């Protein structure tokens, strides 16, 4: 595996398999009374969020803590960023604390890649603008594989605002890499030109949704309404909402959250047993533990056995 996780493109299929396998073994630890393992004891993880986040930041925090790392969480608001410090200076300042990893969220595409050039730490992209959100894609793969038992050959439809979604981009790549067939669907105004080059089919109606094994609905952001991308949320819901009528009995439903009830999803499907939405949130912690582990302690060796999490404590830590 590479030293940083900036894009799903950085991961081979084997890398992904290894991370998912590692997450499985951490899930076992999560079931215990004491959920901590000593893997990253004495090492520092910096969570640096230049953009608001609840799920991603809290699950990275929990993941680092459960691996016994020393954790520093910084939000741009109230930090030196507010005082006009440049990103480069900020990163070099924080690097003076010798972090093993920097988890970075930014409103700008490619920002995590820049950070990786300026720090000796491993950089994990926790969302860069509308570009990518690779750990979200990994937790989605993990959640889906647990429920469906496999990924290979699954037919996945990603529905909604593809233009403004980093989740969509990472997931198209990730599902594709694991052998799923990916179709994207949404209003033509919210499908970027040339998206098929990512390796997906493009549809503008839900007419053939029955083909899907998995329906992955994206969040429809209210603020996008100002750009007149869709005439109204009502019209959007009428054309693209996943509801009990459209979601077939055998289909699974996913959503990265937070959900706009009544817009992209109806209440009935959110609460149905077909929905994996809370499983996705739950998976966030173990998958992010697995990512931290693989980047900082895992090396690039072959996948280890499922009982591993108890062993790393006795393993020598890389300098």
């Amino acid at each position, binding site marked *: 595996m590479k030293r940083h996780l900036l894009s799903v493109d950085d991961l081979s299929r084997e890398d992904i398999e290894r991370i998912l396998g590692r997450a499985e073994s951490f899930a076992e630890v999560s079931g215990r009374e004491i959920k901590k393992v000593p893997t990253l004891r004495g090492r520092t993880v910096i969570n640096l969020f230049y953009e608001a986040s609840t799920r991603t930041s809290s699950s990275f925090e929990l993941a680092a803590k459960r691996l016994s790392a020393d954790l520093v969480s910084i939000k741009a608001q109230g930090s030196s960023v507010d005082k006009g410090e*440049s*990103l*480069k200076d900020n990163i070099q300042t924080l690097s003076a604390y010798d972090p093993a990893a920097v988890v970075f969220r*930014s409103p*700008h*595409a*490619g*920002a995590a*890649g*820049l950070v990786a050039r300026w720090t000796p730490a491993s950089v994990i992209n926790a969302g*860069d*603008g*509308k*570009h*990518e959100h690779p750990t979200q894609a990994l937790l989605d793969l993990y959640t889906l594989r647990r429920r469906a038992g496999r990924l290979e050959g699954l037919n996945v439809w990603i529905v909604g605002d593809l233009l*403004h*979604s*980093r989740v969509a*981009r990472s997931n198209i790549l990730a599902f594709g890499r694991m052998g799923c067939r990916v179709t994207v669907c949404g209003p033509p105004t919210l499908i*970027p*030109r*040339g*998206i098929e*080059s*990512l390796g997906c089919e493009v549809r503008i109606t839900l007419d053939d949704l029955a083909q899907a094994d998995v329906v992955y609905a994206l969040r429809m952001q209210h603020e996008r309404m100002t*750009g007149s991308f869709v005439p109204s949320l009502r019209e959007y819901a009428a054309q693209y909402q996943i509801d009990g009528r459209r979601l077939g009995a055998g289909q699974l439903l996913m959503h990265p959250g937070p959900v706009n009830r009544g817009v992209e999803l109806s209440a009935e499907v959110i609460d149905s047993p077909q929905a994996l939405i809370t499983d996705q949130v739950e998976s966030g912690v173990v998958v992010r533990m697995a990512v931290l582990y693989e980047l900082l302690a895992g090396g690039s060796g072959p996948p280890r056995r499922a009982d591993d999490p108890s062993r790393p404590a006795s393993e020598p830590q890389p300098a």
Partner: protein
Amino acid sequence: MSITLDSLLDRADLASAGLLIRRAHLLDPRAGLDGPGDLLVRGGAVAEIGAPGALEAPAHAEVVEAEGLHAFPAFVDPHVHLRTPGREDEEDIETGTRSAAAGGYGAILAMPNTDPVVDSASVLGSLRERARAEARIPTGFTAAVTMGQRGEQLTEMAELAQAGAAGFTDDGLPLRSASIMRQALAYQRLARRCIALHEEDPALSGDGVMHEGEVSALLGVAGIPSVSESTMVARDIELAAYEDGFIHVQHVSARQTVEVLERARAAGLRVTAEATPHHLLLTHECVRGLDTHYKMNPPLRSEDDRQALIDGLRSGVLGCIATDHAPHAREEKEEPFEVAPMGVTGLESAFAAVHTDLVVPGVLTLGLVVERMTAGGEPFGLAIPTLAKGAPASVCLVDLEAEWEVGESGYESRSSNCAFAGRRLVGRVRMTIAAGAVAFRERSFAIGAVA
């Protein structure tokens, strides 16, 4: 235009060159020159052209042994940002013109999007005065079309023209309002200077920072569609035809725009256009790594667009190559792609880059590239430099075999945001003579030395 406007260009008082360039390959397609010869510069003019080794050096004249080098008319760049006044930390008249001279340029036009904007005769006057003290090569200053480049009210174009504006442009920004564009074209009858246009429709460009296409889709970065440029060019050609004005379209980037320009040319309209080396040589594929050295406006477009630009350059629809040299401070370019400012430097690499990627592989002839590199002043009524006897001496000496890496020994420019940085190019400017004076000499290229 029969009378040239070269008197509008300013330069520091440099000694007139007296030198003999011996055994260079003289190439000036317009003058019918293409072969080895001697060229004698005396009193700042081309005094004599002779067979190789035939001319005698007058007393006190420098002899330049130029065997193996090419002598072209010095290039003319109609599109340079000197960042003065306001951002002298990025470039000033001295560094910008030295950079131009190092690239083989014998004359440039500076853009008015400075701070303050060049929208009054007093700002223009102070710039011209400074150029007379600092500029290494003749430098013309364009003035804004609208006050503060806000697109609302015309500048005092007649007075600005009298004060020596070489042309008018709101470069960096489009003239959003068709009504203002029309007024400017009507008023052009009085101001009698070319109006140069940065063409894009802000409503279509939106928040875009790169070409809209598969790379922007992959990166999740907002795109600028090709039609943002071409629809505005179409609008302004219609308006120019209606008002019988003449316009110059800056930095053409899209195939659609080339097609619009072809139709205008076929209809006999007075519209000229330029292309930059980066648009001719690079595409949006370069942006995959979100390197801000590939961020500029208009953006690098697709391979298909690039091919259309090359065809346009060949046919003459794109009559000249312009650099759109746009220096930026290092810290400003060291920001995420979406945040960093648009623009790249290019004066020092322009010829070598075009030579390497288009002439060496045989896509364009050397003669055609020299024509397009020297024609930048024509839309503005400036004379095209020539090696012909009697003309003011504007010559660049180029070693077409020399390989070098862009930026290997720094830049003459104060900024280093060059789109070709780190690339190995073939073709190195050794010496530039601009309007009769030596403006640049490569350090190792000594007086009297055998090249």
